């Protein structure tokens, strides 16, 4: 899958997993921080995103430090997915 299509798919999955009912995929910028001032996600959301990566892309993140580097924005998530996906 092309990177642009994969990004759009990931944004849809983030909205679905986190029940962001008022957000559309086009509202999420590729380099917008997921946590804090950006999309405003919190620690519970980070666990939901880790489950998303495992269930949909077969990526297991066991080290919290590794998770912090991956779950920065859509760009960092996509880069990691493209390198490590098993599904």
């Amino acid at each position: 899958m092309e990177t642009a299509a994969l990004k759009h798919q990931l944004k849809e999955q983030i909205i679905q997993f986190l029940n962001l009912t008022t957000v559309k995929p086009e509202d999420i910028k590729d380099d917008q921080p997921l946590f804090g001032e950006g999309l405003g996600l919190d620690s519970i959301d980070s666990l939901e995103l880790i489950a998303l990566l495992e269930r949909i892309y077969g990526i297991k993140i066991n080290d919290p430090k590794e998770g912090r580097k991956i779950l920065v924005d859509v760009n960092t998530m996509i880069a990691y997915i493209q390198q490590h996906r098993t599904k």
Partner: protein
Amino acid sequence: MSMFYIHQSVCVSAQKTNGVIDLDDIQPIKDNKLQAIEPNYDAIPPAMYRRMGRAVRLASGAALPLLNTLTFNGIVMGTANGGLEDCIKFLNQIVDYNEGKLTPTNFVQSTTNAIASQLAFFSANKGYNNTHVHRGLAFENAALDVGMMLNEFPDNSYLLGGIDEISAYQYNIESLANMYKKEVVLNTELYNSKTAGCIPGDGCAMFAVNKQKTGATAKLKAIGTLHTDKEEDVTQYLKHFIEKNVKDDALNLFLSGENGDSRYLPYYNACKKIVLNVKTEGFKHLCGEYATASSFALWLACYKIKSNNLKNVLIYNNFRGKQHSFMLVGDV
């Protein structure tokens, strides 16, 4: 036990009980259910709202108007099932992902005490926080808990609530157990039905209660509960309850929890014979059947006492013919 005064109440139900109250305009069943009309959730922060299950949403919508204007020393809720939809989603995750990585949201929302704790978060209430889960007597036990707390701390005020949700999964499971009507029965025709099963419903009623008479709208004078499947036990209990609590006071209305299920109607008919000269009304055609529907009945009793100048209302409810409760509500 000396019970307590009810000062304010909010009811979220399938009827127009929240905001502008209109009980004459009876809302019909939808998909054979009487699901509560969800209130306005604008006051709930979006980050919280997106994680809330239906039970937590209904309770938050009903409680926020009270939490925003009053101060409580504790929050006491009754719910048989809590966030059942999220509970089932969580259990399904365990199966679907082979006991692998599970997400916290469904689990957090599924615990029965998520409701009372969410309300405590909203109001930064660090006081007594308790949830009673005794199926069809969950709300009554919550009310008894508040009564005991007020006996111990008579200057305190408590938020008392009863909540249950009807979820798609629950509807399917309970339907298989023959709990609901197999044929379509309009809620306006509920008491003419001769078949087994009821119309499922859900909702939430919240009450601001304390021991202060001034400003109160009604008084919960007494509660009685019993577990039995024997009709004679129920009638004996009711006779004793009336002798002990009603005495010479006028009883103006008997609110009967009959739900159109022919299997449980004998209990109600037997009780009606004891209060033969008292006007009888049902309430399950308004709210449907759920384990804490008695909280709707208490709200309705308060509303009728105030709007019709009644002196005493007696509520009888039973849950599946085994859990029975009587509540005596009076004017102030």
